[in-house]
């Protein structure tokens, strides 16, 4: 599970060159993306999962909180997936509707993934662009700081943070997002360095546009493709991290839930005749990760074709 930095590098180089040639890479890319079967499958899966998260509750016959007392205590025999009693995905050990809970888990996990990736990408881009654009001493200090931060075992720090500030979604977003901006900042910095001396930037500088504005108006937009690809590939990593945290019991608070929490609950009881408790959340988890990988890879290949 990883984002290949060399491919990102290559993509970044390509994006900045294209800009210089004055031709948008996006139009061609769209064509290439639409032709990529895996990527299109991924996209369809993701749209499906997103619809499930948004509209699933319309179809649920039970709320995600209510205990079904007719099922409770005999889940293995009464709580299996059934259309008759409205538990499409069966129930969990307490007799709560697994369909509603999977919908909710999907919402939370997607949110953690997307917000986490967004934080990582925003921080990484701004940090890298600033370091690269300002250059000199600032650049050196900022990049040395990144070097130092790279050798910190992040999962440990994240666990510490959650232990210290208590479990909350906000902490999870922040902690997970702050884990992965370092690689991003490095690549962005490299590209900023090469963009910085191009004519259009120099022109802007000559007309007295302030540095922060140049970074935001001219440098960041040129990195948009890179950012999009990076973000798409980061989301599944964030989702995986969240599932690990949930496994450790440091995830979101009940009655909220997430894929990780549902899967680790289901995995505990898989030998007790309630396999659906594992199967449904795991299915959504797996296809979503596939979806993001396929789309991310497809997007990258589309923006940075090797056969140019």
């Amino acid at each position: 599970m990883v984002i290949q930095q060399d491919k990102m590098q290559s993509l970044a180089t390509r994006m900045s060159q294209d800009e210089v040639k004055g031709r948008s890479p996006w139009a061609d890319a769209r064509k290439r993306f639409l032709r990529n079967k895996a990527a299109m499958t991924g996209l369809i899966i993701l749209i499906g999962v997103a619809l499930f998260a948004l509209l699933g509750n319309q179809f649920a016959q039970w709320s995600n909180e209510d205990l079904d007392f007719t099922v409770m205590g005999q889940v293995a025999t009464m709580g299996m997936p059934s259309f008759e009693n409205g538990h499409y995905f069966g129930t969990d050990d307490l007799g709560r509707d697994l369909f509603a809970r999977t919908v909710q888990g999907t919402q939370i996990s997607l949110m953690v993934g997307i917000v986490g990736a967004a934080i990582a990408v925003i921080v990484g881009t701004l940090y890298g662009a600033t370091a690269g654009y300002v250059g000199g001493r600032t650049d050196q200090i900022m990049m040395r700081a990144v070097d130092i931060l790279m050798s910190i075992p992040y999962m440990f720090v994240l666990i510490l943070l959650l232990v210290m500030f208590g479990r909350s979604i906000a902490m999870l977003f922040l902690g997970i997002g702050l884990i992965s901006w370092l690689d991003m900042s490095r690549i962005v910095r490299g590209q900023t360095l090469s963009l910085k001396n191009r004519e259009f930037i120099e022109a802007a500088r000559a007309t007295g546009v302030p540095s922060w504005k140049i970074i935001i108006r001219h440098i960041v937009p040129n990195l948009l493709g890179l950012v999009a690809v990076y973000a798409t590939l980061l989301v599944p990593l964030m989702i995986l991290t969240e599932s690990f945290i949930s496994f450790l019991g440091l995830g979101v608070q009940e009655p909220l839930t997430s894929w990780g929490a549902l899967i680790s609950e289901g995995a505990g009881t898989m030998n007790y005749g309630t396999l659906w408790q594992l199967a449904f959340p795991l299915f959504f988890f797996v296809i979503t990760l596939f979806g993001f990988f396929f789309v991310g890879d497809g997007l990258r290949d589309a923006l940075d074709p090797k056969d140019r």
Partner: protein
Amino acid sequence: MTKFFATTALVASLAMPAFAVQPAEGEQLAENQVYNFWLLDAIKSVDPAKNTDVEGSDVLRQLFEGLMNEDEKGAMVPGVAESFEESDDKLTYTFKLRDAKWSNGEPVTAGDFVYAWRRAVNPETASEYAWFMELMNIVNATDIVKGEKSPEKLGVKAIDDKTLEVTLTTPTPYFIKTLSHATTFPVPQKVIEEHGDAWTQPGNLVGNGAFVLKSHNLGVDITMEKNPEYWDAENVVMQTVKGITVNDNNVALTRYQAGELDRVQIPAGQYPRLEKEAPDQAVSLPYACSYAYVYNVSEKGPEALKDVRVREALSLALNRDIIVNNVLQGGQKPATTWTHWAIEGFDQPETELATLSQEEKTQRAQELLTEAGYGPDNPISLTLQYNTDENHKKLAIAAQQFWKPLGVNITLNNVEWKVHTDRMQNQDFDMARYAWCADYNEASTFLDWFRTDGYNSGKWSNAEFDQLMADAKTAEDTTPIYTRAEEILAEEVPAAFVYHYAKVDMINPDIKGLPTENVLNSWYAKDLYRLAD
């Protein structure tokens, strides 16, 4: 004048020779006398003064032996002490020790107990269980723990090598029952002085129990082998006892089923199924722990909970039958008292909570809340705090749903253990999950918790209750006192008692001699033996 064998029940048990359980007629012993038991987590310490947990005690009970042991019913039987006398004022106990030996062959003397007990209260040892000696009411224990007196001042004295005298500050009816606790075990002075903190390493450790420590891989396993120097070694059948750590209960059950473990806890909700599949293996035994939701009635607590009607309504509306029968499903019992039902010398009072049906209780709860000015139109918002655990989570979710129709909105707050404890001790909670396990088989071990100066995290206080608990210390018949104390708890409702524990385990039917009626669940590997398949 002193009475010999003055106190009642002990006479009979002490008069009998303390033989280990022996195979019955016609039972075929297995070649390989091994017992593998399950440990949820690593054993933190095998130093009697530093152990703090139940699993550590299970191991210590094999490696060391105190003055008294417990039999399969939990009654006290002689350990190192052969007999004892109690003075008329009930303040002095004199123990006669038997000819027992340490595993290095040296005799166990009264001096070893004196050393061990002084060590436990010595501030330098910094024992987390020093309070146990205070609980035993030994003279000067409290002052020594505070560092105001030297450990030599502890009220324990070796009259000669085989005679130990203990003096108490106040008559303590449960004193003898504390003597099978790990904190009171003797320790070998020479070995400790020679090795320092490393004396508990396998090879260094010298004990007086029926088994010696063979190996200890932290978080993996701990192996003990029969001690040939043990005074009753000829009656010990078991050769090897091994504690195996498995951090996940479900995996532990899988490994039990694969034959790697001889005893394992059954995960919540699985008892009915396993009981059907393997009735000779699944057991549910009473276990002296109680589970409750404690209300914070202190200054920092929520206004609503200061109203006894609200507290009672919440307690009444909690459908304990569903919790016990449909969530836990392991033979636990609904709790209407704080003291566990199986505790010796305790009669449960007749209370509304115990007698009404659940519909009646729910209705009564609604009335009480309406009286107090609350209800669905004026909902109460409270936080229910629990520490990370699958079962606590399930119960909290269920409780939330039981209270919802009353117009009580519960926010669940799951925190990890240390935070939970810290907040409880600082009254930073509305309602919190809590459980208490007996230290000895008497109701005061539970009820003391609610004394004004007890642990009492909710800071409930009642003068009559305090007085009752003080009276119980010297009373001849404590049963009515404890019943009255529980009545006060039922009227004042400082906590909603939820259920009384049961030990719900799978036990290999080949293993014989495990206690089935001891509510503290103390077991002694010296009493175990394994049958051939």
